[in-house]
């Protein structure tokens, strides 16, 4: 079970999340959509505790963390949550001083204490899966944005996380490069990877997501299967937002 309950997050006096409840079904893909400032990235970052909520509960398998204002969760719990989640960032954030394969083995060796050879074998499998095995020894700076993001996906998958978080995984990419990343994510979805992604890429949400959650002003406005939510949004705010996305020439 992966769930967020009554999550509240403020930056200073500005409330970003106002009591968000969200269950992420395992083996499914959940996409968070919403205008900028709606809190979708913050919500995603609360799941692996890059942001610590002031109130609410995070349930991740056997782990249950209750948040209180001013009380940081135990270091052990934070690391346990991060070891069960992988994250893909909008701007890739590969380690520039490590080769492609070292980027993938880094967490396995440093955090997971894997033996070097086993880590390399695992990394090559994953690079194969994202179609970049031939780039294993390249430096990240020599890759296109789409290739970098695929390496970032392989890095995030390396320790076999229970949940893959993707923060706007295609927003920094040209459409044709975004397409190769969407293909990889769609492949993972078919294999039953549990994913939670923040996106305003309609093509990505339509093709990959089982459930789309529309956030506005730090609360969940409505959720449903993409076909339904995009075609017949119930709430006027959702309708307006979907129209602007379509108007942008997405789809």
């Amino acid at each position, binding site marked *: 079970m992966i769930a967020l309950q009554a999550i509240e997050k403020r930056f200073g006096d500005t409330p970003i999340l106002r009591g968000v409840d969200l269950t992420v079904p395992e083996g499914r893909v959940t996409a968070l959509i919403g205008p900028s400032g709606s809190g979708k990235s913050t919500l995603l970052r609360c799941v*692996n505790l*890059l942001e610590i909520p002031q109130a609410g509960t995070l349930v991740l398998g056997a782990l249950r963390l209750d948040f209180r204002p001013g009380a940081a969760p135990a*270091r052990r719990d934070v*690391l346990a949550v*991060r*070891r069960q*989640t*992988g*994250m893909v*960032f909008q*701007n890739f*954030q*590969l*380690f*520039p*001083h*490590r080769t492609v394969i070292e980027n993938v083995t*880094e*967490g396995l060796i*440093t*955090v*997971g204490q894997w033996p070097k050879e086993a880590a390399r074998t695992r990394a090559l499998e994953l690079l194969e899966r994202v179609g970049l095995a031939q780039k294993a020894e390249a*430096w*990240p*700076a*020599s890759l296109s944005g789409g290739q970098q993001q695929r390496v970032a996906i392989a*890095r*995030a998958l390396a*320790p076999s996380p229970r949940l893959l978080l993707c923060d706007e995984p295609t927003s920094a990419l040209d459409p044709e490069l975004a397409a190769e990343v969407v293909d990889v994510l769609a492949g993972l979805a078919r294999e039953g990877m549990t994913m939670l992604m923040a996106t305003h890429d309609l093509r990505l949400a339509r093709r990959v997501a089982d459930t789309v959650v529309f956030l506005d002003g730090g609360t969940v406005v409505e959720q449903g299967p993409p076909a339904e939510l995009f075609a017949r949004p119930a709430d006027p705010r959702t309708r307006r937002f979907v129209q602007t996305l379509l108007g942008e020439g997405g789809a």
Partner: protein
Amino acid sequence: MPHWLDLMLQSLGPLLEACLRFTIPLTLIAFALGLSLALVIALARLFGPRPLAALAWTYVWIFRVTPLLVQLFVIFYGLPSVGILIDAFPAAVIGFTLNIGAYASEIMRAAIASIPKGQWEAAYATGMTPAQAMRRTILPQAARVAVPSLSNTFIALVKDTSLAAAITVPEMFQAAQRIVAVTYEPLILYVEAALIYLVLCSALSWLQSGLERRLGRYGGYLEARA
């Protein structure tokens, strides 16, 4: 053979001996200790609790705004008045170490702070502890940013060790002074000493570009910060 060349060749032995026995060891020891101190000070200023950060700031401030020669005099000639007697060579090591520690900590602090926040987050998302993130992700990238400035500090230190002559360390410049005292040939001897510093420091700056190339082999420096 002209007189000046003869004198230079005769003096080369004593000068090089002083260089090998004092100038180079003093430089290497003070730089190694100074860098270690600088890292501690930089981390204290960036991540330490407030009183510790303030203490580190005060140290850096004092050593950057007072002359190195005066610092050496305080340590070697001043401290005996309060009962602290330190031999010339260790006094020089302490003085140069404290001076390098202050300057290099500023370089390191800026280099560490220049690594984008996203790199910390990527390391944390991988499950690293703050110490692991620092060691595996931030410091290697910061090193590349800091190396050109630290190399300059190192080359400056080689030259500054000549100040140790003033606190009786028999390093190369003092060896030259001693030969001048008996030959009355200041121009020839001091030019010779200058030439040895020139060769030494030129070799170091050549090594520096090699090190920068090696650290820069992963490319993408400008793209990463564009």
